[in-house]
């Protein structure tokens, strides 16, 4: 089984388990407020991390290249051949 299919299966089964916990297992019982407050912040934290990594990371390096201009200067340069204007 390849890595890709492992991801597809684990993600599919896990997501259905998350979605079905309330409707199938809990049957309308509410979750604690503190739990809901914490879980609700996972998505914005991870999405912002994905924006940051996708914009500034090249492998394990942080770079400032054409991808950082995707909002204002299309078309951006390709990451494989990006020439960093600075990196640290």
């Amino acid at each position: 089984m390849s890595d890709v299919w492992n991801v597809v299966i684990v993600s599919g089964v896990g997501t259905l388990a998350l979605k079905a916990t309330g409707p199938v297992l809990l049957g309308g019982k509410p979750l604690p407020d503190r739990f809901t407050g914490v879980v609700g912040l996972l998505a914005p934290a991870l999405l912002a991390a994905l924006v940051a990594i996708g914009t500034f990371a090249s492998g394990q390096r942080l770079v400032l290249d054409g991808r950082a201009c995707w909002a204002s200067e299309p078309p951006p340069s390709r990451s494989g051949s990006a020439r960093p204007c600075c990196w640290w």
Partner: protein
Amino acid sequence: MAETSGDRGFREGAVAVVPMAVAVFGFGLSYGVLARAAGMGGVAPVVMSATTFAGSAQFAAASVLQAGGAAATAALSALMLNARYLPIGVTVAPWLEGGFWSRLLHAHLTVDESWVIAAEGTGRWNPRVLLAAGMGLWIAWILGTLGGVLFGNVIGDPARLGLDAAFPALFLALLMPQLRTRERVTEVAGLRIGAPPPAIAALIGAAIALVLTPFTPAGVPIVAAGAACVIGLRRRR
């Protein structure tokens, strides 16, 4: 409880979802192109769209795999992004009817957009609208992914077209609706900050990811960014 969950039916749900389904189809196209470019092949992205059925999680998994991250990290990122469906599932649960399979089907078709369309206000949800809207979105997402996978095969290497910059742009588009909240102030470590909790969590998450990038394997900074959610612990008392 159907009699107390609103007057709208399956037909109203199917009509209401059309504009969103068109947008989701376009989103599916871009997922298909990028997933194929990320080395996921042609079949796996379509199967993932039918089963995981969640844009942000699927884009995240593709992004981590493309960066050379481990399968476990990619799957964990996807599941952490979908953790929000646990409380979302709990909100619709009291309004669902039928046995195990019916509830499982409604749960599977519950995504951000169908949840919003099925909301009747004052904490009530309409199961018929949820089913219709969810089915429309599910079909649009799968067809979009299929189109993207086929189209991606024709255009070849997306990096040539600058599509490597599409991932962060898509993640930003997914992040923006998450930042809308009724709460305007965040309390962290005794400080009151004049910004919504999701915005503070987003800033901390991005900072964690960037700090860890030089020192950890691909994908790990994404998972670690989830630690930012602990600021929610002190939010509600």
